[in-house]
């Protein structure tokens, strides 16, 4: 357990000292949101209607964009080999690295996203359910980003492949996330399904991602 905390702390420290973590992702997020009214026209009613979905899609893309970093540098400098040989099972290493990614990238994005909703005329009443759904959903996004990063860790130009592989898996999260965001009640059935997705991801993703990493580390 101590070692897992050490892994998470190491990743958090790396992310804060290297920079280019949450800040860049939020910058990308805002840019996508700003481009949207430019492409669709400044119709306030239309923007209000599509705001939750647009914020979710921007969130998916920003999390995906930062996915590559989860394992790549550790794979390249060999620390991943050391982790695979260590006492902590590779599955838990994956879980630790995914949670570090969540804490440094996805969670700040999920917290900031509803606040940037004012750029596209998000209904203020929708902010609490959207925020809650995004905080939960972002954990699922980070877990799947870790799976995608593990599958493509040793590939040059893995970025596009990650998108092709992982975006289909983001579909349920997007559907139930948007449904939960436009709900009038804070905790509806969509939010419960989203929670179920997160829990299933917490169990299944580390196993699959660790298997993928082992294939490369051999």
């Amino acid at each position, binding site marked *: 357990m101590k070692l897992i905390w050490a892994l998470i702390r190491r990743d958090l420290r790396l992310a804060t000292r290297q920079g280019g973590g949450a800040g860049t992702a939020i910058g990308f997020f805002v840019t996508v949101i700003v481009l949207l009214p430019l492409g669709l026209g400044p119709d306030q009613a239309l923007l209000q209607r599509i705001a939750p979905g647009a914020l979710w899609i921007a969130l998916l893309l920003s999390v995906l964009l930062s996915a590559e970093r989860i394992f790549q540098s550790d794979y390249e400098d060999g620390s991943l080999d050391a982790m695979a040989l260590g006492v902590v099972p590779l599955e838990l290493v994956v879980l630790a690295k995914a949670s570090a990614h969540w804490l440094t990238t996805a969670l700040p994005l999920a917290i900031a996203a509803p606040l940037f909703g004012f750029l596209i005329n998000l209904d203020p009443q929708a902010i609490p359910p959207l925020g809650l759904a995004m905080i939960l959903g972002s954990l699922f996004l980070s877990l799947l980003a870790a799976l995608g990063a593990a599958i493509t860790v040793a590939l040059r130009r893995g970025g596009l492949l990650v998108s*092709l592989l992982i975006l289909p898996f983001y*579909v349920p999260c997007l559907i139930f996330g948007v449904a939960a965001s436009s709900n009038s009640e804070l905790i509806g059935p969509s939010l419960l399904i989203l929670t179920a997705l997160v829990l299933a991801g917490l169990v*299944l993703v580390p196993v699959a991602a660790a298997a*993928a990493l082992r294939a*490369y580390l051999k």
Partner: protein
Amino acid sequence: MQQLANPARFLKLAQAVLAPIWGLTAIAFAVGLYMALVTAPADYQQGETVRIMFVHVPAAWMALMVYSAMAVASASAAIFRHPLADMAAKAAAPIGAMFCLLALVTGSLWGKPMWGAWWVWDARLTSMFVLFLLYLGYMAIWQAIEDPHRAALVARIVAIAGFINVPIVKFSVDWWNSLHQGASVFRIGGPTIDQRMLWPLLVMALAYLLLFLGLLLIAMRSEITSRKIRQLQFARLEGR
């Protein structure tokens, strides 16, 4: 299955059964198409466009079945180290993707006169499209990783993880209010479709299945050959 694990024995068997499979495929398609286009009655609501169903529905069944077979083959490759299982999954993927595309395209052609739109964002259509993307992703993994052994290990994970979409496609019409028709053949309580339409549909499904088997055997054969060539080339390079 263990008997077939030997590629040489597999090749011999494939050689023996290929000709009969092609013969049966031709017969099944001839009978199926005749029944579908001539003897089957037109629908009282949809008119003649209902005949698209005889191409569309078996293709969709095959798309699901092929992906399931890929997942089973990948799982058995992971569990039993069956040397041909990964090749079978790899060879099946493009064929399944074509069935999936055929189902999407014919559905679209049918949707334009019936629903008034080429495409609607309905649960069944969306999940079927996601299935197509999963096929593409699976094939992209084989393309992206050069070493076939390593590619097999990673592709297995993708195939098994993507299998979660198959029940979603199958039950999407029951779980969500869907514009797409509900199940009328494989359902609890027996088929609700009329006998005169059910039989052409089943014959067409058989024809598709035979076509798939024939194409799969050819694709696996060429995969075995290309691996042999690869090994021979490595051996020659090392010999220098």
